[in-house]
């Protein structure tokens, strides 16, 4: 069996061997529902759409994904199992990929378990299911981006709390990059193309267009590049740590 699969299977087993998986899924579902009904005006909006549901995903991921990713590498460093992992005949990238795919598959599962809300909206009205599928895809890609950042940060430390906080901060900046109050200090002295470039890095901009049903290759490439970049950095950090 392939090394990536071996790591992935072990990680997934790890999630379900502890209460972590269940706690995460329950909290994710409860919060997703609560945001949708309380702030999203799912019923009163009078529209057969899941926009009130998807709009809050970035904020949900902002705290839940770092909670999932913080242990990925920090725990291995802390308990010394990193020594076991690094002396198995695997390349570092195989471990990084295996862990990332496991965490991503797990968030996909949590996301899939929100299906009752999709059934509900289809029962109540006639939503555009194409848009909903696109929004699920966009949400999953965004979760992957958050996870890749979290995995990278986790590899830099052996303290899970630090990994959590730093990941939240980086993800928050990535979310808000396109937001006016954050950009306004730059306006006037930084060339406009650079401001545009910073704004275009925002998770929100890219997620917003996908979640409206517009699957633009550029948005998908954005998330794929983001994931690739941070996982590559993750591999580099592990090599650097090894060199002491």
């Amino acid at each position, binding site marked *: 069996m392939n090394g990536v699969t071996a790591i992935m299977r072990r990680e997934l087993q790890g999630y379900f061997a502890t209460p972590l998986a269940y706690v995460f899924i329950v909290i994710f579902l409860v919060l997703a529902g609560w945001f949708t009904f309380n702030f999203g005006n799912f019923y009163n909006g009078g529209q057969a759409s899941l926009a009130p549901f998807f709009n809050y995903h970035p904020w949900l991921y902002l705290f839940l994904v770092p909670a999932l990713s913080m242990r990925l590498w920090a725990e291995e460093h802390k308990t*010394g199992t990193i020594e076991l992992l690094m002396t198995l*005949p695997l390349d570092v990238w195989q471990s990084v990929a295996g862990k990332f795919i496991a965490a991503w598959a797990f968030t996909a599962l949590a996301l899939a378990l929100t299906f009752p809300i999709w059934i509900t909206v289809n029962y109540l009205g006639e939503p555009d299911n194409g848009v909903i599928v696109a929004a699920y895809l966009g949400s999953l890609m965004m979760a992957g981006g958050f996870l890749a950042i979290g995995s990278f940060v986790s590899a830099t430390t052996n303290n899970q709390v630090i990994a959590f906080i730093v990941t939240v901060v980086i993800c928050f900046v990535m979310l808000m990059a396109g937001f006016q109050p954050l950009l306004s200090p730059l306006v006037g002295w930084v060339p406009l193309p650079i401001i545009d470039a910073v704004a275009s890095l925002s998770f929100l901009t890219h997620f917003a267009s996908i979640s409206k049903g517009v699957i633009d290759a550029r948005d998908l490439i954005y998330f794929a590049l983001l994931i690739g970049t941070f996982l590559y950095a993750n591999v580099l950090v592990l090599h650097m740590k090894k060199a002491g």
Partner: protein
Amino acid sequence: MIECQELTKQFGALLAVDNLSFQVDPGEVLCFLGPNGAGKTTTMRIIAGFLPPSSGRASVCGLDVETHATAAKRKIGYLPEGAPSYPEMTARAFLEFIADARELSGAKRLARLDEVYGLLHLEPVLEQTIDTLSKGYRRRVGLAQAILHDPEVLILDEPTDGLDPNQKHEVRQLINQMSESKTIIISTHLLEEVDAVCNRAIIIAGGRILADDTPGNLEALSRFHNAVSLKPADPSQLQSLRGEIDALPEVVETELDLKSERLTAFFRDRRLSLKAINELADNKGWELSELHLESGRLDEVFRTITGGAHA
């Protein structure tokens, strides 16, 4: 085969391993002895591919551990210090994960798993999570993990730490069984282990090799080597016996251990010691409950050799 050439590892200002060179061949069981912080674990980590050396090179079965890392790791079974493992996994799931990561498959995978379960007596705890296991079982799970793929080279960092005397005996037997075909390095603090499993010992302190020899030759460095110890049937005779032995011209000095009621005599010419005492005892008609030739004390050699480096 393991080869280290001028291996050096520096952590900031600390020189953990200082220009080590040695070679270990199949059939050899090499023991690293040394005080804490001597560089034993660091050396093992470099050979296992966990740490890169600052300079010098290490190779396993002809494969450089840096440039052919993955191929070298396939040849090695490694028990890291403290036998780390994933606490939330069951012993079975953990070993199956190792089997997968080492790309064992099909009948061979099942056969190897069954064999290590048996060799390390893990059957009763296979379904228990590792965090509920005793220290002895955890160490055995770690050993099982290291020998699972039947590697040519074994690197075991304190393999018997935390085991009770029976378990220690079993693990030593296991190492002895495997030693015929494999190249093995172990580290230990237990000097009795050196005699029990090793045919070569390297004493390290301050990252340097201070001695590299067979356990027998190292023991011969001891001043106890070929000294004679005896115990009179009647303890009250100890002092008078000591006086008569001291009077022998070949005897350099005698030592009295009041706790064990034993007298030890050190000779100028070590080869003649037992004969001289025997003759004396016969002539005087001593009644001895014990008389033997000392082979040498490794702990004393260890202290003598590492004492300077430590202080």
